[in-house]
């Protein structure tokens, strides 16, 4: 089985701060979790490498502050990354480290190859635009020009994520958290991206809304074969969605494996703590 990953991430690094003589050297530095107490630099993502395969949902779990969101934001070019390489299996950017592309080329990737659902809907939606308007904005950015077809597609997508037609012209700031997440999902899907990033999509939602969002994500995977990275600190969510998962701690990957194996036969000390505290 020679599968080509759709996304290859190699040695990703993200630090907040300049570093100092105490922490500049990877081998010898001693950090407090991810933090250099001498200069205050935060090493939020450290030497993270993984593959994402076509059509798969890859789970990323880890405690608060482990670097999950920072990593996604780095992949999505929201924040400058400190180091590493990222390759996308797409003719337009084949064999190119996309982190080194021009901002115009990065915009192309964001508009055509990536979709993002943020942990905080405020980052993903314009709260004062209508829901349809939010989706239209993304489609226009991706080169859409035909107003009626944009509107039709927006409606189809909002229907797909179960936003009632009569509320489509409403501003998402009037919506519940679950509805906002679903509008974000619709927006992220509008350009048919082969790769979708989902950051804590179900966090803070009540259980029944959570179930409907999970179901929606599964359905999207089945019907559209989109590859997804699903970040969550909720192991139950990861268990439902992801065949394979990665466990992060203090910015590094400490364990990867089949999701059920990570849950039933965790290898790393921290993963064991995480799993034991589940029951």
């Amino acid at each position, binding site marked *: *089985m020679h599968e080509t990953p759709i996304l290859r991430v190699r040695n990703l690094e993200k630090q907040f701060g300049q570093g100092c003589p105490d922490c500049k050297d990877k081998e010898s530095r001693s950090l407090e979790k991810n933090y250099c107490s001498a200069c205050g630099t935060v090493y939020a993502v450290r030497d993270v490498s993984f593959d994402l*395969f076509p059509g798969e949902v890859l789970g990323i779990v880890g405690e608060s502050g482990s670097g999950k969101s920072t990593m996604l934001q780095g992949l999505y070019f929201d924040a400058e990354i400190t180091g590493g390489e990222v390759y996308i299996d797409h003719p337009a950017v084949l064999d190119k480290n996309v982190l080194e592309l021009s901002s115009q080329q990065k915009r192309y990737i964001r508009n055509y190859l990536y979709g993002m659902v943020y942990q905080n809907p405020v980052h993903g939606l314009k709260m004062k635009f209508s829901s349809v308007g939010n989706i239209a904005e993304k489609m226009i950015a991706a080169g859409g020009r035909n107003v009626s077809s944009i509107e039709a597609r927006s409606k189809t997508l909002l229907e797909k994520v179960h936003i009632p037609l009569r509320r489509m012209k409403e501003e998402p700031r009037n919506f519940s958290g679950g509805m906002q997440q679903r509008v974000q999902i619709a927006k992220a899907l509008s350009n048919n991206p082969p790769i979708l990033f989902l950051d804590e999509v179900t966090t803070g939602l009540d259980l029944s809304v959570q179930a409907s969002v*999970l179901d929606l994500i599964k359905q999207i995977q*089945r019907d559209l074969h989109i590859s997804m990275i699903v970040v969550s600190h909720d192991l139950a969510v990861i268990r439902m969605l992801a*065949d*394979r998962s990665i466990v992060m701690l203090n910015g590094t990957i400490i364990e990867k*494996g*089949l999701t059920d194996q990570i849950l039933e036969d965790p290898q790393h000390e921290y993963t064991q703590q995480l799993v034991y505290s589940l029951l």
Partner: protein
Amino acid sequence: MTILEIKNFGKAFTIHHLDKTLPAVNNIHFSIDAGEFIGIIGKSGSGKSTILKSIYRTYLPHTGEILYNSDRFGQIDLAKATERQVISLRKYEIGYVSQFLNVMPRTTCRQLVQNALLEMGEPGETAMIEAEKALTHFEMDPKLWDSYPNTFSGGEKLRLNIAMATVKKPRLLLLDEPTASLDQQSKMKVREIIEKLKQQGTTLVGIFHDIEFMEGLCDKVYEMKTGQVISAREEVAYES
């Protein structure tokens, strides 16, 4: 044809907070021919589930080989197969059923069986037809098809579990005490189901507490000895 051959298999669990490595099973050898039904018995804690879960790779094998004769990969050592290979085998070749139902919330019984097929890439139409066939075959009351299984009885949950696993027509099906919480009548139903699967040529490895249940059903029964060292080959309780 040998479909599965386990050689010198061992599994230990390292528990970090106890700073201990606990051996669960050691030195396991046995092999299974295509179409056979192997039963495994033994005391609680003797390592029966550990073997099954290691074959399915829910547990990470420690030592030894688990050689599986795969349709898609030829002979493959499940102890060393990549995660993606294991995922593919679970999708198309190897099924696992326990007494526990672990499924997406708010998904109906019918959808769950359909999804198993859709995930294999079957077209929607086929998935619908095959799902109904499977539910009928396993005598699920049609009244239940469009309900959520969290309210199902133990027997109903189990039959749904078996339906989800078998609708994919696995070549190798692992059964971990599927009958544990069932009454006699439901057990008999499961027995019929297993007989049907055997007739269809499925290779089965099953753990059962109930020796009577296995009688006449298993081709071989291996007994696990606590103390971990077993040589299943010599521990054949009976061969029918």
